[in-house]
């Protein structure tokens, strides 16, 4: 049997989460003795197969079809289900990205199998897979088992390490009927600028009510640019209209786990922590020495952000 | 006996708490600091049915119980006692007397306008020489043809600066003492009416406390509320009900102080551990919580009796007395638990402290509450 990774590409380039999933798949395949396969779906994407080989895949199955140009969950799910029917894998992995969040449950319903979403760890021990998935916005972690034969899981981005390894790397075509999609994509608007996407970013600089107004975010943006970081926000700043909701980090916003999270003018409410508590390193900048953010920050800087951030930007520039 | 919420009480609690946290809390500090009447929230409260909670649906109220009313006032006052009193005065002091004593026509017009939140109400009772001794009022109403002509001044009137209607208590026959007192409904866009001094106050600074000036203020004959000479009864009955509202306001303030102090005590570390682990702090919180629960039971019992149509004057007085003193104590000790931080305006405890004090004064001082209770006990 096999472990299958459903590769995610957008506009002809593979997303980082795919490498994270492949690396995890490889580790699990070695523990369970399965083979590692990747399924690559899209239009004009066959060339991407080579890149997948770097992560130890034994086989890449490619479904390259004009009808699959724009991603639609129902059509992609049909392809995936057909592949699963042929392959009968023990485990299928997706990223917990907007792609995987929608496609995985749709495919799981078609295949009629169990799925654990948003995993932060998966292990194989005593002949079974064990999935860790945070619940209640990270206030608890559930350890799940899934009755087979097929299991599915989506992986939280930025949590699983990327490890390159060798594999047979055969490339095969997979042909199947592609149903007409039920939805039509009539437009796509990507946020402008070269800042990384929030859930994929290695570094995030977030601002809250303490910024005092929308202009305050100029400071956060400048810091983000100095660090090559994405910009996030607390809900208070979103509710005040200083930032769009897509930037909100927290229980009712995005869940992120960057290597470095810099929270400026954010008090550290429990709902905010729910979205960034799993960051590897947290820096809190706050003028209130009692602010809750200091209870979780690895480095707490007590003081006025209007003085600290400009100085910090200067210092970072000196380094470059 | 049952001590559980009904479905509607639970839902009302959830709604009022959500509204108070999302809409009332964020502006509470500003409302206090800037003396700002929270007009937008008062309008929203009208739309949600909070301005006429126990007014029947046929008069555009919400048709809910007085227990629901008490719960709602507490939730709003938990975040902002100014908003709480604005709501309490409209419900208890303006809607209630018309609901109880008004004619059908008065209810269709004035009660419906105020219960729906289209118009705001106030009660004009207190005068410079008539505070606790309300019967000593000097304002007069004289019948002249089809109109009453009103002269005099009222002071300390909550909502006085924004209200559209006033339930006014005035003398129609000075020779009769409190038997010569009658109640009226006055529309305040009347040319014979003006707003005088606005008080600058220690607390509840978001609610206006105004002087109402009546100079040959002519109102239609049919705006008499209840019978001639029975106005003092209207006032006393109204205040009995109002005390359930003020008790609930005090409960809200007490809870705010207890909750904030509890949260702080768990976080503030001194001598290497959170101060919540010090017995001195624990005992304060234990006592305050006990007083709060007791006051709440008294308040809800008074509301229950009112819902049942039973006498509740003594119980309402007990509830207000206990809740007001609990609020004051909770705010005082709440500040104590926060130490120096509690004394600054960075934390809302000092606001709770200033707001709590009024609950021991208006709608009958704590001394007057004891008087009412004693009279009942001794009779």
């Amino acid at each position: 049997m096999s472990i299958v990774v459903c590769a995610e590409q957008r506009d002809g380039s593979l997303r980082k989460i795919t490498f994270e999933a492949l690396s995890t798949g490889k580790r699990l395949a070695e523990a369970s003795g399965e083979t590692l396969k990747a399924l690559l779906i899209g239009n004009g994407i066959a060339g991407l197969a080579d890149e997948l080989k770097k992560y130890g895949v034994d086989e890449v199955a490619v479904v390259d079809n004009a009808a699959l140009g724009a991603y639609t969950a129902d059509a992609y799910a049909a392809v995936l289900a057909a592949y699963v029917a042929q392959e009968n894998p023990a485990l299928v992995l997706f990223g917990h990205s907007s792609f995987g969040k929608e496609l995985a449950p749709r495919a799981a319903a078609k295949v009629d199998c169990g799925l654990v979403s948003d995993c932060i760890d998966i292990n194989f021990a005593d002949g079974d897979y064990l999935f860790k998935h945070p619940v209640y916005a990270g206030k608890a972690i559930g350890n799940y088992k899934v009755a087979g034969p097929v299991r599915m899981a989506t992986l939280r981005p930025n949590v699983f390490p990327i490890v390159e390894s060798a594999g047979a790397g055969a490339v095969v075509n997979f042909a199947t009927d592609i149903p007409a999609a039920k939805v039509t994509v009539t437009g796509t608007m990507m946020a402008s600028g070269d800042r990384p996407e929030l859930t994929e970013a290695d570094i995030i600089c977030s601002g809250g009510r303490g910024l005092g107004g929308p202009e305050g975010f100029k400071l956060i943006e400048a810091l983000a640019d100095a660090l090559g970081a994405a910009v996030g926000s607390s809900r208070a700043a979103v509710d005040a209209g200083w930032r769009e909701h897509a930037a909100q980090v927290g229980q009712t916003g995005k869940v992120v786990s960057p290597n470095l999270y810099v929270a400026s003018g954010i008090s550290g409410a429990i709902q905010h922590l729910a979205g960034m508590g799993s960051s590897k390193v947290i820096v809190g900048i706050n003028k209130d020495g009692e602010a809750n953010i200091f209870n979780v920050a690895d480095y707490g800087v007590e003081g006025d952000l209007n003085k600290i951030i400009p100085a910090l930007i200067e210092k970072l520039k000196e380094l470059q | 006996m049952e001590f559980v919420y009904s479905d509607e009480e639970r839902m009302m609690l959830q709604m009022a708490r959500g509204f108070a946290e999302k809409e009332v809390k964020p502006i509470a500090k500003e409302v206090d600091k800037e003396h700002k009447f929270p007009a937008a929230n008062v309008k929203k409260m009208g739309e949600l049915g909070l301005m006429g909670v126990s007014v029947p649906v046929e008069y555009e109220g919400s048709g809910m119980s007085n227990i629901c009313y008490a719960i709602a006032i507490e939730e709003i006052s938990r975040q902002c006692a100014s908003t709480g009193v604005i709501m309490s005065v409209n419900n208890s002091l303006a809607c209630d007397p018309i609901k109880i004593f008004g004619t059908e026509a008065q209810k269709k017009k004035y009660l419906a306008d105020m219960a729906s939140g289209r118009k705001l109400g106030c009660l004009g009772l207190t005068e410079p020489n008539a505070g606790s001794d309300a019967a000593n009022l000097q304002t007069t109403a004289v019948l002249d043809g089809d109109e009453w002509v009103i002269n005099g001044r009222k002071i300390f009137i909550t909502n006085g600066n924004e209200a559209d209607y006033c339930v006014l208590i005035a003398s129609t026959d000075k020779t009769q003492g409190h038997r010569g007192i009658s109640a009226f409904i006055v529309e305040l866009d009347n040319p014979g009416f003006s707003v005088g001094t606005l008080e600058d106050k220690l607390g509840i600074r978001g609610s206006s406390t105004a002087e109402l000036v009546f100079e040959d203020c002519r109102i239609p004959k049919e705006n008499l509320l209840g019978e001639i000479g029975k106005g003092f009864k209207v006032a006393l009955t109204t205040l009995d009900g109002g005390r359930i509202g003020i008790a609930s306001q005090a409960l809200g303030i007490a809870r705010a102080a207890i909750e904030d102090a509890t949260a702080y005590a768990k976080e503030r570390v001194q001598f290497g551990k959170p101060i919540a682990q010090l017995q001195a702090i624990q005992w304060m919180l234990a006592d305050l919580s006990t007083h709060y629960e007791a006051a709440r039971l008294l308040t809800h019992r008074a509301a229950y009796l009112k819902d049942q149509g039973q006498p509740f004057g003594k119980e309402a007085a007990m509830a207000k007395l206990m809740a007001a003193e609990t609020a004051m104590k909770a705010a005082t000790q709440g500040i104590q638990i926060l130490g120096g931080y509690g004394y600054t305006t960075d934390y809302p405890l000092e606001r709770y402290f200033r707001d709590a004090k009024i609950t021991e004064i208006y709608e009958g001082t704590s001394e007057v509450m004891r008087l009412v209770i004693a009279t009942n006990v001794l009779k």
Partner: protein
Amino acid sequence: MKIVACIKQTFDTEAKIVVGGNGQISDEGVNLIVNPYDEFAVEEAIRTKEKNGGEVVVVTVGGDKAQEALRYCLAMGADRAVLIQDAAMVGADSRAVSIALAKLLSEKEAGYDIIFTGKEAVDDGAAQVPSRLAEKLDLAQANVVTALSLADGKATATCEIDGGSEILEMALPALISAQKGLNEVRYPSLPGIMKAKRKPLEVLSLSDLGLSADDVASKVVLAAAELPPARKAGQRLTGEVDEVVAKLVKLLKEEAKVI
């Protein structure tokens, strides 16, 4: 129009999580609310009815207490409610829930024009039921929707995707999963709360739906829950701004190695 909103009752987001001796999460003393994203779904359902006429049916799978959540939605303005309640559904996984909902919506409550759900529940954070349900009902789905318009039997939805958004068009009936931003959720008014008491709330068991316990046996089983390791407060940097900043940059570079 027949408009359906699927909701879930969840813990209050402030709730403290306690893991019981059995390794399961205890709900004792926890305040329960309508899942915040589902409130957007119910709000959109009611607005759709206000614009187009018809009725709003709220449905959920849950226990006794779930009736409170349904009543809350009725107080907001939904017309009637259906609760699927069965001992066999206690601890049900997303698959089981979507099977029960799909059965209800394809038979007893068939004939809907649009189904609204939240984009995920804040308790298990799985975000599976909406897409599973769409698949089972063979419907188009717009996921993580922040804007929606309906016209001529078609839905046009703006969906949040990683790093941007896209616009999808689909024929009705369709399933719409609501994200924050789709609308401003109303509070139930007090008259609304009073009316909710008299609105119909139907409780159905699995056998009422024609399902057996085997049909909904969970495939995903929570072996045990645990509390995450507490994050500890780290170092506090104090001093003059320049010093502090220099210290911070040094630590990030040399100790944490993140820049």
